[in-house]
């Protein structure tokens, strides 16, 4: 074997690299031809590639942009800063790199903009790594089917529409129906249950006051330390709103690729599509349905495809996505809602009518579905919530018919009364996610008729009494159930006893 000196090898390599680097400080440049509405048209830069970063040299400093429209004579670039600084004739330089953002654990607990710049007034963020904003999703062989539960702490979701790690579950509904509240509770639950899941919340064009309230709440619940908030407000340029979810996904992918689990919430993709429509129209791209460009489906499909459960060979990490879509007057057949419904692995539909009837979370049992989460449902919850969804759907149908007459046979009346109790049970206050054992005990008590003699109005009281009794007297057994395994006969007997005992105090005369 020849004698190889590492020092010489290193020197040879350095010389070879120096020999190949022929740029000698030369840069590719172009000229801004026209600018306006956050878009600059640049002449020259024939080597620019799609999504490549550009630097526009203005008298007040450098403004960054990225190339989106590559045409024969000029390129359309979307500005990441204010267009008031840029004017025709400014020199544009190719940065030779596509857009990337800082990624890593240093971002935890911070509020940043889509470029990773701090917005919370804290110290500058220095990460060891950066991640590409636009990146190809993991291939088929790099994935594994969703099989681990991601507990939201919301009884209705965990029992009827379970979400697994790596799943994309859409939260859809009209304005003011509790979409964001649902996701905040899910984030809080990750901290309360010590799941180790990192939360990433992306506010796309959300009011700054709403983001401030959310951050305050996350701090209060001690969730912020495992959360990254990527915030954009309606006053930000459309380009920032456009890259926000991609940048946040890059931040989430860091945890996914490092054998960790992350949850990303896109609040909301309707505003994201609107920002993209604005950019596309300004870039003179032909409008299609509802004036959205032809590639609006690809806009969201390529984003959500990056959320995945990785195979064991790749470390088994996961990125779970909860995109939010706002509908108009409950119309889920509009363009963007149908697109995202077809991309995701299920949807939680929130109904305005239910919300105003006081049923909160206002989850529609009929229109909601989880296509892959069944395999990931906690065995403990699965064992007690078998026919819950069917029963609830049947109850809502029966209840609407029952409004027309009072002569109902006993079995129908019982079914309606059981449904009413179930509906009451599934009501849940905000910021109070339930642990596994609380869910198991509550569902078991109602579905097994242990609260049948209690009026539906008092269900929450009897539930609270039962849970506080179990928590105080049987904490060891409940901790066992909390591990997620199917409850033993012995454990179910304990729940039955506690439920019967609690119900006695609330029975109607």
């Amino acid at each position, binding site marked *: 074997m020849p004698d190889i000196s590492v020092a010489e090898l290193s020197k040879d390599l350095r010389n070879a690299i120096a020999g190949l680097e022929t740029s000698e*400080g030369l840069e590719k440049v172009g000229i801004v031809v026209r600018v306006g509405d956050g878009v600059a048209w640049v002449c020259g830069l024939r080597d620019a590639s799609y999504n490549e970063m550009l630097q526009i040299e203005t008298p007040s400093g450098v403004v960054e942009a990225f190339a989106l429209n590559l045409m024969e004579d000029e390129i359309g670039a979307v500005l990441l800063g204010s267009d008031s600084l840029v004017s025709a004739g400014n020199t544009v330089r190719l940065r030779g790199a596509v857009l990337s953002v800082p990624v890593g654990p240093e971002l935890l607990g911070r509020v940043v903009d889509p470029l990773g710049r701090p917005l919370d007034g804290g110290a500058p963020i220095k990460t060891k790594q950066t991640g590409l904003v636009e990146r190809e999703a993991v291939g088929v062989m790099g994935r594994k089917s969703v099989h681990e539960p991601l507990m939201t702490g919301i009884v209705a979701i965990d029992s009827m529409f379970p979400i697994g790690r790596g799943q994309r579950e859409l939260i859809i509904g009209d304005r003011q129906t509790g979409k964001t509240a649902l996701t905040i509770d899910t984030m809080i639950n990750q901290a309360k249950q010590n799941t180790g899941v990192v939360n990433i919340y992306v506010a796309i064009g959300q009011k700054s006051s709403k983001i401030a309230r959310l951050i305050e709440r996350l701090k209060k619940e001690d969730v912020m330390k495992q959360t990254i908030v990527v915030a954009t407000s309606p006053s930000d340029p459309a380009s920032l709103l456009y890259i926000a979810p991609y940048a946040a996904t890059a931040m989430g992918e860091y945890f996914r690729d490092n054998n960790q689990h992350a949850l990303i919430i896109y609040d909301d993709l309707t505003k994201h599509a609107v920002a993209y429509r604005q950019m596309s129209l300004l870039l003179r791209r032909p409008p299609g349905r509802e004036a959205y460009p032809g590639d609006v489906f690809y806009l969201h499909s390529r984003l959500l495809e990056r959320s995945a459960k990785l195979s064991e060979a790749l470390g088994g990490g996961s990125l779970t996505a909860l995109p939010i879509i706002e509908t108009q007057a409950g119309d889920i057949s509009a363009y963007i809602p149908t697109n995202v419904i077809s991309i995701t692995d299920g949807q939680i539909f929130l109904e305005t009518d239910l919300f105003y009837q006081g049923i909160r979370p206002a989850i529609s049992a009929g229109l909601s579905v989880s296509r892959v989460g069944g395999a990931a449902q906690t065995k403990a919850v699965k064992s007690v919530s078998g026919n819950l969804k069917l029963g609830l759907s049947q109850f809502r149908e029966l209840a609407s018919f029952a409004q027309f007459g009072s002569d109902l046979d006993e079995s129908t009346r019982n079914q309606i009364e059981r449904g009413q109790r179930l509906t009451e049970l599934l009501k849940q206050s905000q910021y109070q996610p339930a642990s596994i054992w609380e869910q198991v005990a509550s569902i078991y008590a109602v579905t097994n008729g242990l609260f049948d003699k209690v009026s539906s109005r008092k269900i929450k009281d009897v539930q609270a009494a039962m849970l506080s009794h179990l928590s105080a007297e049987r904490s060891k057994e409940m901790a066992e159930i909390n591990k997620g395994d199917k409850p033993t006969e012995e454990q179910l007997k304990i729940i039955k006893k506690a439920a019967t005992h609690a119900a006695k105090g609330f029975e109607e005369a």
Partner: protein
Amino acid sequence: MVVRLSRQKLSKYYADSLMNGADAKKLAGQMAAYLIETKRTKELSMLVSDIEYQMSLKGVVIANVTSAHTLDEIAKTALIDLIHRNTDATKIRLTEHLDPSVLGGVKLEFTDTELDTTIAKRLITLKTNYKK
């Protein structure tokens, strides 16, 4: 009606014609007439830059060098050598411009490429970094 052609096509036609020995004055007259007819006279400077690019593909590079003070022959030769190393140019024409606003250093421009070592550029970079 005159067909609207892209600048790339126009510049390629112009460069090809020049290289094939066409009468430069006649060619310029034809191009001017076309630009007036299609109301594209504002694109003139961009068209010139496109023609320069097309010429560079054929080995003819027209370079501009801007400095605060007159350059000596050694500096000019170094710049020509630099262009030779980075292009397939067989013929290089270097035009010198004096501009005190660059403060110091040189700015070399040729076909979409730039080498800016001026103090003015460094000050802009400093300004941006300071803002960040």
